[in-house]
């Protein structure tokens, strides 16, 4: 019941997160990211099945490039995120398989919403050239005007949609 108490103070966590982003600027020349990795895995899958189709779509062909879609720093970074997230949960004793949802909301509908939200975010992150971490956090801390416009728009979109899907948490 006191599981929440095991989370870090949000300000302490934020400072730690900021230091990770700063270390990434210094050693990589850019910030962190996330959405591109899922996209690249998708492109690699399509490329394995239909390579001629990939060559016909510029945005896919340029992602494959000469090294292949998966040989990119962000794929390795997100691989690290999987390890780090699992390590954090395991060491705090909160690893466990479940479909997170409200007590009365059907799991199948929750998964459908989870996929739909992912599709919207995958599309939007390509359009905006980054996601919450890749553009709002990393670009925002570099004081990019576009990153701040993006971040404020995320809150607009989030608060605008929240009422319509509130039932999934009931």
């Amino acid at each position, binding site marked *: 019941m006191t599981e*929440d108490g095991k989370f870090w*103070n*949000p*300000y302490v*966590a934020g400072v730690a*997160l*900021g230091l990770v982003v700063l*270390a990434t*600027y*210094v050693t*990589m*020349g*850019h910030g962190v990211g996330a959405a*591109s*990795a899922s996209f690249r895995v*998708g*492109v690699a899958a399509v490329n394995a099945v239909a390579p001629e189709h990939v060559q016909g779509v*510029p945005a896919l062909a340029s992602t494959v490039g000469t090294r292949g879609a998966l040989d990119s720093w962000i794929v*390795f*970074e997100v691989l*690290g*995120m*999987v*390890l*780090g*997230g*699992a390590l954090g949960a395991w060491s*705090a004793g909160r690893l466990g398989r*479940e479909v*997170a949802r409200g*007590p009365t909301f059907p799991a199948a509908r929750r998964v459908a919403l*989870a*996929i*739909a*939200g*992912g599709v*919207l*975010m995958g*599309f*939007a*992150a*390509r*359009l*905006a050239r980054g*996601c919450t971490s890749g553009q*709002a956090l990393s670009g*925002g*801390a570099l*004081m990019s*005007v*576009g990153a701040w*416009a*993006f971040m404020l728009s*995320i809150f*607009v*979109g989030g608060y605008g*949609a*929240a009422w319509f899907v509130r039932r999934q*948490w*009931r």
Partner: protein
Amino acid sequence: MTFPIESLAGDRRSLGLALAVVLGVAFGFVLERAGLGRVRKLVGQFYGYDMTVLRVLFSAIVTAMAGAVILSGLGVLDLAFVQARYPTYLWPMIVGGIVLGAGFVLSGYCPGTCVVAASTGKLDALATVGGLALGGLAYAELEAALGAFPASGAQGAFTLSQWLGLPAPVVGAAVALLALGAFLAAGRIERLVAGRGDPARGAEPASAPAGADVALSR
């Protein structure tokens, strides 16, 4: 020595990729420990009962920004070089932000936190990761049909300092003050929502005293 070092250049590439894994481990670990692998904590931001997202995001921005400005002032970091990697395309970023925000609330995760949540065993988060790949592929297929829109509002590496005509440390201090104001407002909103009963939770623990969630999240 001036940073950033080009960690991925030439024969240093494998070392740079190993470093990417290390940075990713730190990134994922911190997000998990912040509670941002938990869907209730993430959506709490949008229903007003838990503003952890805002607290973590803004304190991270202020920290990374202060660090970048200080290192640049000391002549250790070439800030303009890093900023050049973040060009502004105003219109696609605004539209993309609104769509991503809606997707965030539908799925309950953002593109990074769903990876963390999936790594801790959340199957809905894994579904969101799959959705991300599909959405990215859909964009790639449709990009040509969007015409000039994805490149509209192009301003290059346009910073708040350039826009406001103020030096970076002044803008940094202003953002820090703004964050402080947001933190104070966040606490007020949480208390307000806790007092009113949480609209997103409805039937959930009626026995829990008002404000219990807020107290626990601290």
